């Protein structure tokens, strides 16, 4: 059973990142490849405020979140806005470029070493049926569900949530209805960046934070978002946990060197059988 808990631990991290991908996809139809870097920045800011400046926990969290919210705004306002030809490919290429820039800057500021952030809840092992989990990991899983619940109800039931979705469906129609599309695009990046920092801050005590972390966690989170179906928060959650558990299962049953191979074969299979992912939505197009 331990592989299940191991999978849930890493799966919850993938899930949080997948949710970040979904927010931006849900409003702009873009894939933000700098999502992994947002996570790294979140962890590093937590390290700076909590370990370097020795601030208490709540102000540290607040500073991290507000900074990252602003980073998200700058990201969209200054970089994506001034692209001449706003095709999806161009914009996605820019997110990749920004990911590389953020990685470089993070390396210059925080250095190459891994940074350790002190635990938020008492660091202990929680025994469960047939295995055990760390108290920090349980916190991450818990937050995952809260975030997915909150976001999916926000997008489904509130006026603003509906405006976000309208932008995804048809930007011109949304503008005509009086929705400020520019603002919505900006806020979607700000929220995604905030969520990334939440993920980064939460996982930093478990996995530490290194400037190169964004590459692999971004990739795994993206895979999780695809498995669950882009655009669906519950899908992202499901995809993350599935990917984590499948990986851990293969590490447990087969020689563990091949676990990533098997995990990505599963990803391929899912895409063959159900190309939109488990909860993916189709855009209705009138012919």
């Amino acid at each position, binding site marked *: 059973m*331990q*592989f299940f*808990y*191991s*999978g849930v*631990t*890493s799966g919850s*991290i993938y899930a949080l990142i997948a949710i970040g991908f979904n927010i931006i996809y849900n409003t702009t139809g873009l894939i933000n490849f700098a999502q992994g870097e947002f996570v790294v920045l979140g962890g590093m800011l937590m390290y700076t405020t909590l370990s370097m400046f020795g601030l208490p926990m709540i102000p540290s969290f607040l500073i991290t979140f507000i900074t990252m919210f602003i980073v998200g705004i700058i990201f969209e306002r200054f970089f994506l806005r001034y692209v001449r030809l706003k095709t999806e490919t161009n914009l996605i290429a820019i997110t990749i470029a920004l990911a590389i820039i953020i990685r470089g800057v993070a390396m210059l500021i925080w250095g*190459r*070493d*891994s940074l*350790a952030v002190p635990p938020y809840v008492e660091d202990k*092992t929680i025994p469960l049926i047939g*295995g*055990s*989990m*760390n108290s920090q*990991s349980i916190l991450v899983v818990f937050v995952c569900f809260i975030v997915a619940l909150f976001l999916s109800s926000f997008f489904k039931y509130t006026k603003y949530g509906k405006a976000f979705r309208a932008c995804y469906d048809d930007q011109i129609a949304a503008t005509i209805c009086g929705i400020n599309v520019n603002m919505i695009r900006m806020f979607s990046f700000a929220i995604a960046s905030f969520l990334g920092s939440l993920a980064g801050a939460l*996982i930093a005590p*478990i*996995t*530490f934070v*290194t400037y190169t*972390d964004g*590459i*692999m*966690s971004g990739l795994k989170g993206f895979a999780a978002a695809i498995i669950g179906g882009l655009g669906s928060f519950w899908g992202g959650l499901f995809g993350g946990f599935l990917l984590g558990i499948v990986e*851990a*299962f293969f*590490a*447990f049953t087969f*020689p*563990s*060197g091949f676990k*990533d191979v098997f995990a990505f074969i599963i990803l391929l299979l899912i895409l063959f059988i159900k190309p939109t992912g488990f909860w993916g939505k189709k855009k209705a197009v009138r012919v």
Partner: protein
Amino acid sequence: MKRFFYVVFFVIILNYVANADIKLGAIFSVTGPASYLGLPEKQTLEMLVEEFNKNGGYKGEKINLIVYDDKGEDAEARKKFLRLIQNDKVIAVIGPSRTGASLSIKEIAQNSKIPLISCAASKMIVHPVQKFIFKTPQSDELAVEKIFDYLQKNGKKRVAILTSQDGFGDTGRNALIGESKNYGIEIISDERFKDTDKDMTSQLSKIASKNPDAVVVWGIGPAPAIIAKNYKQLNIQAPLFMSHGVASKKFLELAGSAAEGIYLPAGRITVVDKLPNNDKYKPLLLDYKKKFETEFKTPVSAFGGYAYDSFMLFKKALKVRGKDSSKIADALENIKGYVGITGKFNMSKDDHNGLGKESFLMIRVKNNNWEIVE
């Protein structure tokens, strides 16, 4: 007037060349991803050369040290090595810092008959032996032998290994599997992990289910610290061994209390303060530590020690046979019993590293610090 300046210029140049009689080259990764290796190496070497020149040099001739930075790139190291032998006409080269770079220039060094004393760890640099190629760090294989030696003495036979899926882990895994037979050790579980993995409890619970006498983890970076935490989480009782790759304060900081009780082989410089006073290495290590730390205001590391030993070996060879490249290589090959920072060097025709497994000490983490076990 112009001609006058030309003449003065050439006189200065000639004068410079005439005075700098012994040209020693060095290539280190001073910047780039391996700067933690290259920087202390460069600092150490410059410090030693300065001291050597101040004390009169070799028969009144001073060493002119030319250090180049390969930025951690193999191609750059090649370029810099060619420049050293073609333009600067050095008689020997110390470095590079990294295995890849060392391997990429070893053929040219051998063909151009320039002694190369590498500061990189891989056994492949000096195996098979080539006349002009030497290295000062211990091979990873020696760390494995040290661990197995300790396990054998303590009657632990059934061992599980968990190695990282990168160059360091591969070397470790091959050595662990290869050496196990010589020590009568049975590898009962052979698991792998990626440096980017977030949780290793699946692999560890699989290992735990086989009930090993000891577990050996081979990796560097943050992943071994995560493993240490997972190990405590699963409450596995078998003693945990790690590689010399985690013998740093950083590891203790990351793993925190989870590091307690972990065994690892490490060079003497890591635990210099805890060495017994009769240890024959201690005075030398303390002397180097003091000099380095007062000069550069950073804690001393094993890496600077590789450059230290490289230079000392070069100096010995120079004193014995003079400043001819081939003669230096001959002399290097015959150095016996040199006690250096890394260990005791006994060079021979078949061994261009000259270190034995006693160049490692077995240490254990206690109260978030090191403790010498053996």
